[in-house]
């Protein structure tokens, strides 16, 4: 396709979420994939194995998930946009290197297609039980950027968004969806090359001697040189100074910890916005994400048809948690119904952010089946019947 071509139409295709993820990654400029087979994420690896060699990229199947994320970090330091994809058990193994990538500030994208857990759990069934693992799975204080798409189209869009955020913030970004989204085939509109906003990491421009890979003197994300370009520097998982060398200086460590931990929080404006529906006069709000969000949207419409003033709030970015938005939602509703496919994880965050302004009730399901609109509708009806309740209850 030459530069002279104008108005190249977008490609429209019927794609599984996992296929849309691979296409989004390629569109975002990802040229390296390392992974280990695991249901229900394997189609991402399979698609990347087919696509990457044709575009000058590299696909490699590693010996385990620990090695997969290690190779991704190594490739990213080599200057390639890189990703891996897995499911809960593999995501657990990757946590060691999620922390490394956070601490060493290496951009990369990790897809976790959630299945039933714990342990081997339900390999071919959906769940949303990794939302806390995505936030707190690795040890130590660290930033977390976690996006939760709810359709094949959104998987495509947010995969691009995940790479952009990873490059802009110099941090791993986690794309979190479940087995239903992974395998559901839907229409996906993919803009032609050049039709998407694609971000690149900041690279150093100054002298080799003056390069400080961990200095954010101007308040920006520090530039990251790639290995082999003349900027010789040190990368470590140890607490380090601005040059990247180990330090035990409490003042240096303290400020580095705060800067790195706060990266996601300070850049909320870059996160994808939440979806809101019928919230203006809502008395009952439904908070849901991913596939549960789609069921919740239907439930809210059904509730409205019955005359219940229900509204819908679906964060596309789960972490950093939308504290202010949830607080504002809670301020003008009687109750918030949290619908999620686990035994209660984000509900605690909703309760915390609601600050006691609204009753918080759960509509929880953790049996390998997707949550149904009828279940959420029933929870909304119950909350509506209870009338103006005070306080907060979980479960």
């Amino acid at each position, binding site marked *: 396709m030459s530069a002279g071509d104008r108005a190249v139409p977008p490609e429209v295709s019927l794609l599984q979420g996992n296929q849309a993820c691979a296409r989004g990654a390629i569109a975002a400029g990802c040229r390296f994939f390392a992974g280990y087979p695991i249901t229900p994420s394997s189609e991402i690896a399979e698609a990347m194995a087919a696509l990457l060699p044709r575009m000058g990229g590299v696909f490699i199947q590693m010996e385990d998930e620990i*090695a997969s994320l290690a190779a991704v970090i190594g490739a*990213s330091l*080599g200057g390639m946009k*890189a990703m891996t994809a897995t499911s809960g058990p593999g995501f657990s193994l990757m946590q060691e290197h999620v922390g490394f990538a956070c601490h060493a500030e290496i951009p990369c994208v990790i897809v976790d297609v959630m299945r039933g857990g714990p342990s081997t759990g339900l390999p071919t069934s959906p769940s949303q039980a990794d939302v806390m693992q995505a936030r707190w799975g690795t040890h130590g204080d660290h930033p977390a950027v976690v996006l939760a798409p709810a359709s094949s189209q959104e998987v495509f869009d947010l995969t691009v968004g995940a790479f952009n955020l990873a490059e802009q913030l110099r941090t791993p970004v986690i794309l979190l969806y479940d087995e239903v989204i992974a395998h559901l085939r839907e229409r996906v509109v993919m803009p032609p090359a050049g039709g998407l906003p694609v971000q690149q990491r900041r690279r150093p421009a100054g002298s080799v001697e003056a390069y400080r890979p961990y200095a954010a003197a101007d308040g920006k994300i520090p530039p990251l040189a790639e290995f082999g370009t003349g*900027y010789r520097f040190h990368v470590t998982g140890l607490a380090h100074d601005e040059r990247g*060398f180990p330090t035990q200086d409490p003042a240096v460590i303290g400020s580095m910890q705060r800067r790195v931990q706060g990266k996601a929080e300070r850049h909320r404006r870059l996160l994808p916005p939440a979806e809101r529906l019928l919230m203006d006069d809502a008395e009952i709000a439904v908070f849901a994400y991913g596939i549960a969000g789609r069921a919740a949207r239907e439930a809210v419409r059904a509730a409205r048809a019955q005359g219940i003033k229900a509204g819908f709030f679906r964060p596309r970015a789960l972490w950093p948690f939308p504290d202010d938005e949830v607080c504002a939602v809670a301020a003008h509703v009687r109750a918030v119904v949290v619908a999620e496919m686990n035994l209660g994880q984000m509900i605690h965050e909703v309760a915390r952010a609601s600050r006691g302004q609204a009753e918080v009730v759960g509509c929880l399901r953790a049996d390998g089946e997707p949550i149904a609109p009828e279940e959420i509708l029933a929870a909304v009806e119950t909350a509506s019947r209870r009338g103006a309740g005070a306080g907060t209850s979980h479960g």
Partner: protein
Amino acid sequence: MPADHRTASEYRRYLRQEMMPHILCPGCGHGIVLGALLRALAGRGVDPDQVAMVAGIGCSSRLVGYVDFCTLHTTHGRAPAFATGLKLARPELAVIVLTGDGDGLAIGGNHLIHAARRNIGLLCVLFNNQVYGMTGGQLAPTTPSFQRTATTPYGNLEPAFDACRLLTAAGATFVARGMTLAPVPLQDIMAQALAHKGFAFVEVLTECPEYYGRYNRLGTGAEMLLAQGRLPEAVADRLARKTFLPVREEGAGAAAGGQVRPGLAFGILHREERPELTEALRAASGGARG
């Protein structure tokens, strides 16, 4: 091919002198290993901008902080996996993995054998001091049987790994063993390993007087170093009594003790030609990579 010892003396340019003093204990053999590697690089006139050194966790892995290359100090045992990703992204770089016996053969054993199997163009130098030094002298998968460590106060009941045989079996296309007592032959081994296309593995016997030596009353670092000179006999003794390595001798002579040959071979132990992974990938994709 012997290394160029004149240019090799310029190895100091590869050191981050400002990071000295280093954290290694008095008598530790690791500096000898690093010195041999850096002399080999200097002897080949290697541009430091074209070298990336990747290490795991442990005393030997900390050495990457003191060398003026692009250096990546990773997680425990995972250096070969990080190095694999880096080499795939930048095949033109000389990617060198530094690892220890615990790092490379226990927690990272899986990554090491798979890197060898892939024959990806990495040089992996394994510092074998038979113990976990960084954490205070605990049992390693290379600790000889019956030897004492912090976690084997009554003597180790497990046999040790022979790293070179393991890596040969895994598919490494260059396998060698050196010792700190013989730094010049070690430098030659390093030079040949650097010239090798494919996965090169160099195990170096080094000494930890601070823990392994102290727990087993092996003397000072210098005494432990000199003891390497008696290694054939010492190894023969271990073979007979302590199964440091599997006995290769056939027949009853080995058990009788009189005919036991040294089981610990030194020098280049294995070399073969096999397609290197990044080159194979480039060929398979029709040279699509830039």
